[in-house]
């Protein structure tokens, strides 16, 4: 069975003067020469630009190096053979000249090589005088199948991990290398007779031209880390990232490339990471140049790879240079502007994911609170915009749903943010707060989250964050300060004035032992004493002289009997009922014991300090009366 294949070709674009036997290279033209194709396929162009066929600088020679590679993209498949030789220009300077042969589909490298050997008498090298025209590819009738048997020595080399280096002294041909590569995983890639390769890691099989080159190539492989096989797809992405980040002027024309790459399953997070690292992102975190291009690069990386957002924040806050924040912010606003006009759901989803990931991250890294407040609050940048418009409302809806779920006693609840794996731990640990009988433990770990929402509510002047501040503060400390309690004006409060409900969770405010004394009083008579105290306070302020301590002692002694023993006991022990249950029946003995302990531990009770102590006490009582009002 025979089949005819079409072999296309094109060569490095360079001006040539002289004759076929004696020519000199002039300048590069920037276009390909002697092409049989109207335009070189994008996938092949990308692979060339990504140096998938490139020999290392100054390593081309008159002895042709041959490179075979299959390029597989979702929509295109090509078998390509590149032949590299050295040319010289009129100034005597060297240049590597390439002649590419390509055939549609994979598995055709063998046929391209056979065509050269059978019909052209050997490997075809760069020859500007071998004129080709568009639309006239070479045609070759496939006669023999790929039936090369490998020597045992070569077969044994295949068990090495790629790139497999075939010693230069092992006699080989491009056909043999191609056969060997075919035994490995697709797509095929090999380099024959090379002195040096620009990217040796992206080859399966390499045969250096001599033992010295073998050493150079082995050293090059050892010092380059393994990299994902991207089939040259990296080129347009790298160009787009560079185009977006290298300069101040925003170039929106690069954005579609980023979006397409995000939609391309081949470009996974690992590939993105590699691309950003190649552009210097990883080194920058270490070296801290803070060049504007680097600030934009790391900002973009944090957008595309949400997991790098914490590292970005910690890097940018290190110098606390406002200029650096400003550069990042300008860039964010440019992308935000773009997103608002040309919607990119994929990039937006990643940005939102970044916001969702980073809030729980504060538990591990509380030092990021301030930069995060900048990022989500002060900056008015892209993350801040998405936080305000998407994430914060979603978090609020989640808490409302949870509250609704417990109120209605339903089993399942549909969440948007809190169901994310990074929030799972938090969600599990805070759920008991909606269950009246569940054991609740203070989760001090959440203090940074509380602090973050506090700072953010001050910046954003937002009630939503104020509520979350209160909730997380309560979860981390077991109570909330009175000031915060009174600031939660829109929330329902318990009739005793001790609790405020945030998403149905009753948050108890701080109750000091002297306030508890007041709370314990039942009769109106005693309440009048507090009013009297207020008057005394005013007199005191007005510097009216009177036997003050005596008066106070009298007042206190007068209302003491009316106080509930239990509250007094708790007040003396400085504990609140929620934390530890006090004995329900307090005997005189128990109270007196607690009182003795209290006095022995309080220095202030000593006569020397009594005036001072009483004054403090009265001040507190008065402030509490005001609070109760």
């Amino acid at each position, binding site marked *: 069975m025979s089949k005819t294949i079409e072999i296309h070709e094109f060569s490095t674009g360079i001006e040539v003067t002289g004759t076929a036997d004696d020519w000199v*290279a002039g*300048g*590069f*033209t*920037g*276009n390909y020469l002697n092409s049989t194709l109207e335009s070189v396929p994008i996938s092949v162009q990308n692979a060339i*630009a990504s*140096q998938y066929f490139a020999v*290392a*600088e*100054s390593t081309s020679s008159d002895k042709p190096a041959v490179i075979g590679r299959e390029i597989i993209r979702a929509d295109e498949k090509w078998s390509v053979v590149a032949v590299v030789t050295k040319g010289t*220009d*009129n*100034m*005597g*300077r*060297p*240049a*590597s000249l390439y002649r590419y042969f390509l055939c549609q589909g994979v598995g055709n490298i063998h046929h391209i090589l056979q065509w050269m050997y059978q019909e052209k008498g050997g490997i075809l090298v760069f020859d500007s005088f071998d004129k080709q025209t568009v639309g006239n590819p070479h045609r070759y009738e496939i006669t023999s199948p790929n039936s090369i048997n490998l020597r045992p020595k070569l077969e044994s080399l295949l068990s090495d991990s790629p790139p497999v280096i075939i010693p230069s002294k092992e006699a080989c041909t491009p056909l043999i290398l191609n056969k060997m590569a075919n035994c490995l995983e697709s797509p095929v890639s090999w380099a024959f007779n090379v002195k040096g390769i620009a990217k040796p890691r992206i080859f399966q099989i390499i045969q250096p031209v001599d033992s010295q080159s073998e050493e150079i190539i082995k050293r090059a492989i050892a010092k380059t880390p393994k990299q994902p096989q991207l089939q040259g797809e990296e*080129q347009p992405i790298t*160009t787009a990232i*560079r*185009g977006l980040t*290298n*300069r*101040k*002027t925003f170039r929106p024309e*690069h954005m579609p490339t980023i979006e397409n790459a995000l939609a391309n399953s081949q470009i996974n997070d690992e590939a993105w990471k590699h691309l950003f*690292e*190649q*552009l*210097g992102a990883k*080194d*920058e975190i270490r*070296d801290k*140049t*803070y*060049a*504007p*291009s*680097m600030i934009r*690069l790391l900002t973009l990386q944090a957008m595309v790879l949400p997991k790098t957002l914490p590292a970005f924040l910690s890097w940018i806050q290190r*110098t606390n240079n406002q200029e650096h924040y400003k550069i990042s912010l300008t860039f964010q606003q440019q992308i935000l502007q773009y997103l608002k006009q040309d919607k990119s759901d994929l990039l937006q989803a990643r940005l939102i994911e970044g916001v969702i990931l980073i809030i729980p991250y504060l538990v591990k890294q509380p030092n990021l609170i301030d930069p995060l407040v900048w990022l989500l609050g002060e900056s008015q940048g892209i993350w801040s915009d998405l936080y305000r418009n998407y994430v914060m409302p979603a978090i609020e809806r989640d808490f409302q749903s949870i509250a609704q779920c417990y109120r209605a006693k339903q089993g399942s609840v549909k969440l948007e943010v809190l169901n994310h794996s990074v929030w799972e731990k938090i969600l599990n640990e805070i759920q008991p707060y909606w269950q009246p009988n569940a054991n609740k433990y203070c989760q001090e770990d959440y203090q940074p989250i509380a602090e973050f929402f506090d700072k953010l509510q001050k910046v954003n002047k937002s009630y939503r964050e104020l509520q979350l501040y209160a909730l997380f503060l309560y979860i981390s400390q077991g109570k909330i300060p009175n000031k915060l309690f009174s600031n939660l004006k829109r929330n329902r409060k318990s009739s005793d004035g001790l609790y405020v409900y945030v998403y149905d969770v009753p948050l108890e405010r701080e109750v000091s032992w002297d306030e508890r004394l007041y709370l314990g009083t039942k009769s109106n008579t005693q309440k009048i004493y507090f009013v009297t105290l207020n008057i005394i306070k005013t007199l005191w302020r007005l510097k009216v002289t009177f036997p003050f301590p005596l008066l106070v002692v009298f007042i206190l002694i007068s209302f003491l009997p009316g106080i509930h023993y239990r509250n007094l006991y708790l007040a003396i022990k400085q504990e609140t009922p929620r934390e530890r249950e006090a004995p329900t029946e307090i005997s005189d003995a128990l109270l007196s014991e607690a009182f003795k302990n209290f006095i022995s531990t309080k220095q202030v009770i000593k006569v020397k300090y009594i005036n001072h102590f009483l004054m403090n006490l009265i001040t507190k009582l008065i402030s509490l009366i005001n609070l109760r009002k």
Partner: protein
Amino acid sequence: MLDFFKGKKTKGTLDGLGEPISVDGGDIRVIGDKASGKTTYMASLAYWPNANSASPVQSITSYGDKDAGAELIAKAQNILEQGLELEKTDLNADVTAVKDYGLSIVLKEQFSWKNLGFRSRMVKLNINCKDYAGEFFTDLIYKRGDPKLDDYLEDCKIATGILFLVDGTTHRKDAEYANGLDQFFQELDRADLDGRKRRLAFTLSKCEQSQLWVSRHQPRELAKRRFPLVQKKLATWHGGEVDYFTSSAFGTLGHNYPEPNSIQLTRNRNGTTSVIRDTKRWRPFGLVSPLYWLCTGQRHHELDKD
């Protein structure tokens, strides 16, 4: 009172001096005729061989694009280790794909910006630099209207600094360069740079050649003498600032009777090509000075010294 203490603290402690002042030089394009030494200039700069301890330059490191940085170093190693001639820089069909070299140049404390503060501080110049193929410059003269050339010109217009490198031995091409520059300025002047001033550093390369070396400290006069038409064009350009520099990527050997540290390969109307002679004593001259000026607008005389 508090402010007074604060101020005093910053001045008195080391943390005010530890971090160098960052000067973002922005965007620089290296342009010039083919074989004028653009890539060699960049490679020598990135490699910064045999630094003189008296030099105001503390360090030069590459940042950003790892491939680009590694490529420059590899090129420099080709010069250094093997005494090879560098390859021609390919004319990339897509200007956005042209390698953009990020270089961070740190200048020592005592030499930096003395006039700006009570105490001078280390200065860090962050430079993004594109090394165009020489074809760009010849195309300016012969291929006007070419879409590829237009892309390159557009890319040039956003640059804040242009390093125009000219092989000092190509004085016979003075008229040609003046013509190219004329076309270049016409294009450049059409684009506004958000009110910022564009700077062009006219830099003579290959000044290790003895006929140039003797005048290396009078760059303006040297330019005037050897490239009168170009100099005239530059002097009458109102689109930005111009200053003159001399440089040598290879440097010279010997103090009293210096000779070029290079072996000449070709020498004709198109200039001189050489490879390095003594790699162990490779010390470039004048490479940082034009960049410093492009970034800051100030001439750093220490950088012009041998």
